[in-house]
């Protein structure tokens, strides 16, 4: 299978403090990749570099065969940032408006393509089980419901890859279970490649196919099965990393 995203020798830091050092990574179509690692290991930074939000000091990123500087098909990438649910609760946006934002096209929001835009929004909301909340103000929903809406927003453009950064922070255990089942469905039934930044290696055991373990450098990058047999995994379990859940 071809690489959808390929990173080579990425180095990034602030004011001389390294965050990523010579990190290489490849993501193939259909992968369910977990990026794991301790606090400050550079997980979120890596995702931001892969998405072009941060420019690395060294190294290069290719998306769908093109250098990131030449890549223009951003509709094919969906992103749910780490603090997605830390929104202003008084922001006057309806669920429908929040999902429709990602269309970034006036024609599909205000103009002639409005019907097509609405249909795409409804389809994405249905995908995450939130279609009955379409008229609700986003700030009135629970954290778990908001997270689903943000995933619908990431799905509305029909992406090939979905990036999620610590999506279940602050969400209760039952909702987390439903949430990961939904990601399984998107990956296995809809064929969407998923890149999940997580702190909880328990997730790795149950859902993902590939693992990238980061601690400024790439400590491990390969299949989930091999990871579970690796020393890295044994060390993490012995430290109790699967029990860690933290608030950012």
């Amino acid at each position, binding site marked *: 299978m071809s690489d959808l995203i390929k990173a080579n020798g990425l180095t990034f830091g602030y004011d001389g403090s390294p965050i990523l050092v010579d990190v290489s990574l490849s993501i193939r179509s259909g992968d369910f990749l977990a990026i794991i690692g301790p606090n400050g290991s550079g997980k979120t930074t890596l995702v931001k570099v892969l998405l072009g939000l941060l420019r690395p000091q060294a190294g290069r990123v290719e998306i769908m065969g093109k250098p990131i500087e030449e890549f223009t098909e951003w509709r094919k990438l969906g992103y749910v940032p780490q603090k997605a649910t830390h929104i202003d609760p008084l922001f*006057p*946006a309806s669920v429908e408006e929040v999902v429709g934002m990602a269309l970034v096209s006036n024609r599909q929001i205000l103009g002639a393509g409005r019907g097509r835009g609405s249909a795409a929004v409804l389809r994405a909301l249905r995908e995450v089980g939130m279609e009955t909340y379409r008229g609700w103000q986003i700030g009135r929903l629970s954290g778990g419901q908001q997270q689903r809406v943000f995933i619908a927003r990431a799905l509305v453009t029909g992406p090939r890859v979905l990036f999620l950064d610590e999506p279940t922070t602050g969400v209760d255990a039952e909702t987390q279970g439903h949430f990961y089942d939904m990601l399984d469905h998107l990956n296995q039934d809809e064929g969407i490649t998923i890149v999940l930044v997580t702190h909880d290696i328990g997730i790795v055991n149950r859902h993902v196919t590939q693992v990238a373990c980061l601690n400024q450098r790439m400590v491990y990058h390969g299949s989930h099965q091999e990871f579970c047999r690796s020393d890295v995994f044994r060390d993490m379990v012995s430290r109790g990393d699967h029990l860690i859940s933290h608030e950012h």
Partner: protein
Amino acid sequence: MAGLLHYGFLQRAVLAGVFVAVACAVLGVFLILRKDAMIGHGLSHIAFAGVALGLFLNVLPLAAALAVSVAAALGILRLKDRAGLHGDTAIGILSSLGLAVGILLATLARSFNVDLMAYLFGDVLAIQPAEVWLSIGLAAAVLLVVFLNYAKLLFMTFDRESARVSGVKAGRLDAVLMALTAVTIVLGMKVAGILLVAALIVIPAAAGLQLASSFRMAVLIAGAVAVVSVVAGLAVSLELDIPASAAIVIFCFFVFAGLAGVKRKRLVKTR
């Protein structure tokens, strides 16, 4: 007031006032939600320097104010990026500088006269036909640019990082929004005056945000509050023979207070 509407000066005041106030209100909704509400105050102080420069150089004050305000708005963005300053600090620095330069130029030009007072306090009832058409044209252009970029501006206001991943050129849009705000502030000087024009940006938008459950509704309510305030403010001004700018802003505040009261009642009911 209906009987007076056949007077040219009042027709011009209503036309220019309504267009400019709607542009202010629409931009205000974006600016408040971006936590940039004070940009209106900052740019109005800078516009004062532009007016003083125009009077000093004996060129059209409105044109000088436009050039200075747009340059300063882009300068504020640059100062934020290059010097790593918070937005309010950058606004504070350039607006104080604008006020200082304005006072200096006005003193040098010995032009603390009727012209300058008209810009400071607003004189919408004395607005000239050419100024009306200029105001309508520029306000319509501002609204058109907002309309054409509505989806991107909304996404960027709500979640800047995700908007960038979706291909929105956030830096470029920041510059567009700041330039539009500068143009609108300058247009609003004749309606509300340099000292009060920022109120047209903040108060109708804040009123719109009281009751809206969607962004579109917030923009529509803000626009409606702006129109009602200008028309009612002008009527009150004529009736009581008080300054139009003050009447418009005070009326606008009462509408805001009323809507805030309705919101409070709603919240109490839902508890």
